């Protein structure tokens, strides 16, 4: 398989939230691109802007406070940011679908799950209700729900969390989208279910050839499931690479710190590494490189404190944003 066709490319995306007094820069100059049929992981800690990036792609940032202030999101040749709301509605669900963190609250409590899946199908594929219902049952079967005929007639509160997340996935893939955005799909589930859900996503990806944008804070999931990774820190992407190279040789000091603080097999006795300090307050980002107050590389100097490094390509297919990273153009 060698179709390195770009499905989605995000260029210079900035999303800000405007409160009465302040501007919260949730996403700043984020750029990355995704290829067809691959899984791209967006990693970062809470509040670093991964979810807002995902919502920006769907154009779901809640207005009027949130606003995409600049950038382009090119999906299959169209800039999503310039589409009319009506066209955008056809993209949502049909071409880009999303699954959310909390399966318990992501399903409407007043309708049966079959009904909720069928609604999207009738809308996007112009099918009659009975046909759409049959499709919905088929989808439930596909996501591994036993007795789908019966389960489609049940309400969300009658299901377990894992099953609800399966239903969410069924709903998202019901119209065969080209891109599935999974916003921390397993955070609310326990570990055994996490593996099942991720396996399911893998399998569905093989069947349908869709791309997955996996948003997570769990590096373990990234190592297993993603082919490409972007690491986000304080509303910017600091490093983009394919998974293997990133884990073998992290270039950005933040990524290095993250990988060092992972619990590894054979690790005994010693204290686990931590990145000292706290995530900066989005209202008062440090000047220069946002990571410099916490940077432990020792090359922390005036340049780091005054000028913010841009994301630059240092090797083919690898970019980093650090003045002192190996190969960073000076």
């Amino acid at each position: 398989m060698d179709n390195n066709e770009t499905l989605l490319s995000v260029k210079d995306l900035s999303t800000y939230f405007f409160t009465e007094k302040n501007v919260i820069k949730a996403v700043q100059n984020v750029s990355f691109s995704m290829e067809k049929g691959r899984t791209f992981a967006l990693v970062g800690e809470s509040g670093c802007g991964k979810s807002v990036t995902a919502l920006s792609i769907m154009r779901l940032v809640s207005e009027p406070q949130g606003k995409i202030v600049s950038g382009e999101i090119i999906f299959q040749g169209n800039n999503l940011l310039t589409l009319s709301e009506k066209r955008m509605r056809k993209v949502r669900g049909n071409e880009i679908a999303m699954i959310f963190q909390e399966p318990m609250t992501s399903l409407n409590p007043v309708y049966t799950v079959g009904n909720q899946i069928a609604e999207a199908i009738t809308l996007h594929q112009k099918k009659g209700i009975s046909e759409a219902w049959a499709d919905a049952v088929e989808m439930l079967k596909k996501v591994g729900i036993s007795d789908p005929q019966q389960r489609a007639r049940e309400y969300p509160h009658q299901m377990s969390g894992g099953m609800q997340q399966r239903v969410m996935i069924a709903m998202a893939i019901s119209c065969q989208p080209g891109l599935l955005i999974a916003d921390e799909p397993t955070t609310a589930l326990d570990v055994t279910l996490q593996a099942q859900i991720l396996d399911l996503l893998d399998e569905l990806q093989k069947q349908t050839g869709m791309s997955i944008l996996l948003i997570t804070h769990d590096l373990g999931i990234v190592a297993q499931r993603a082919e490409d990774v972007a690491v986000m820190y304080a509303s910017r992407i600091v490093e983009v690479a394919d998974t293997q190279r990133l884990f073998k040789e992290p270039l950005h000091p933040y990524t290095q710190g993250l990988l060092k603080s992972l619990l590894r097999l054979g690790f005994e006795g010693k204290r686990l590494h931590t990145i000292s300090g706290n995530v900066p307050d989005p209202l008062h980002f440090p000047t220069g490189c946002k990571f410099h107050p916490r940077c432990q590389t020792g090359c922390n100097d005036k340049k780091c404190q005054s000028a913010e490094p841009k994301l630059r390509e240092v090797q083919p297919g690898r970019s980093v944003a650090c003045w002192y990273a190996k190969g960073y153009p000076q």
Partner: protein
Amino acid sequence: MSKQSQEKSKWGTSYGELVWREFSKSWLARFCLGFIFFLFAVAVFAPFLANDKPFAIRIDEQLHFPIFRNLKVSDYCIFLAAIFGYLQVLLIRRNHKRVDPSIRPAILWRQICINSSIVVIGTILILIFVPRRLDATDYKALIASGKATNAVFAPIPYGYDRTNLKLREQPPSRQHWLGTDDVGADVLCRLLHGSRISLSVGFVAVGISAVIGVIAGAILGYFGGKVDFIGMRVVEIMMAIPVFFLIITIVAFFPRSLLNIMIIIGITSWTSYARFIRAEFFKLRKQDFVQAAISLGLPLRSILFRHMLPNGIAPVLVNVTFGIAGAIFIEAALSFLGFGVAPPTPSWGQMLSLGVSTTGRFLWWLSLFPGLAIFLTVLAYNLVGESLRDAIDPKLRIQ
């Protein structure tokens, strides 16, 4: 019974069923709901309960059915609407037990469409074909003079617009169970016919205000920002005006008709519904399932009214019951003050105002019985509202 419960577990319990189960646990709630249904039945069948025309009478060896000949166009329309309304309630119950959830919304939609179109077409046909007759024959005089025999009368054999000046202001007796009013009409008969006014005012006025309020509140709550800011100022201006005096002022400019009163009450009391729905929608807008619905590309109409409204309607439903009680009360007050429907159309408030006669006598039966009717109806609606509020309690939602 076992089969029924099997069916229930087979298809799951919907939110509506959970609320109904909780609601019907209280005997008071069931009793009050029953009382309201009883009132509706009385209102619908008022012409058969109290009428000065007999069901059947033999005049010159020929059988006549004057009561049916004398039904008004409005009576036919009410029967039609009541029959199909009741049919719809039965169908909804049947849907929940028998119809597969996969096609339930489609079936329900089809039933509502068919039923309401039958009612509309039927009403038009009635308006065209039913002649407006006026039968001035005094059947009681015919019987008294021996020309007619074998008459079968309604339980209360008086018309609400029949005056009998010889029997003015009579206290309750065996002929007139609740006495007579200032023109000698039977109070019980007028009370029964008056229930139509009260119930229809309650329903139509609250229907109008709930529809306006829900749509306005949904838009304010969903869009927020500037829309909300401007909209809420309008709502606040509306709320700053004392509604009752506004209504009196408006009524003074328009002819005294029931429809006008309903519309005026409706368009002046939507603000509370708008505020409830707005608050609920603010909360719901950020919820994951609404975001999920948007992310599926569903149209705004579906998101607002299919996904958000059923989850935020509960406080409005509760308030509707209080609103109906309030509207009945406003109508009674308007009629009491003489701004309501014009006589001889009976209205409870207007009857109440006759309690003090022009001669200065206090006619207790004219104050007590209509007052009791207003009191009981308003009380029943309020108690139903209370029970509904308890049944919708958030504790129930976590299941």
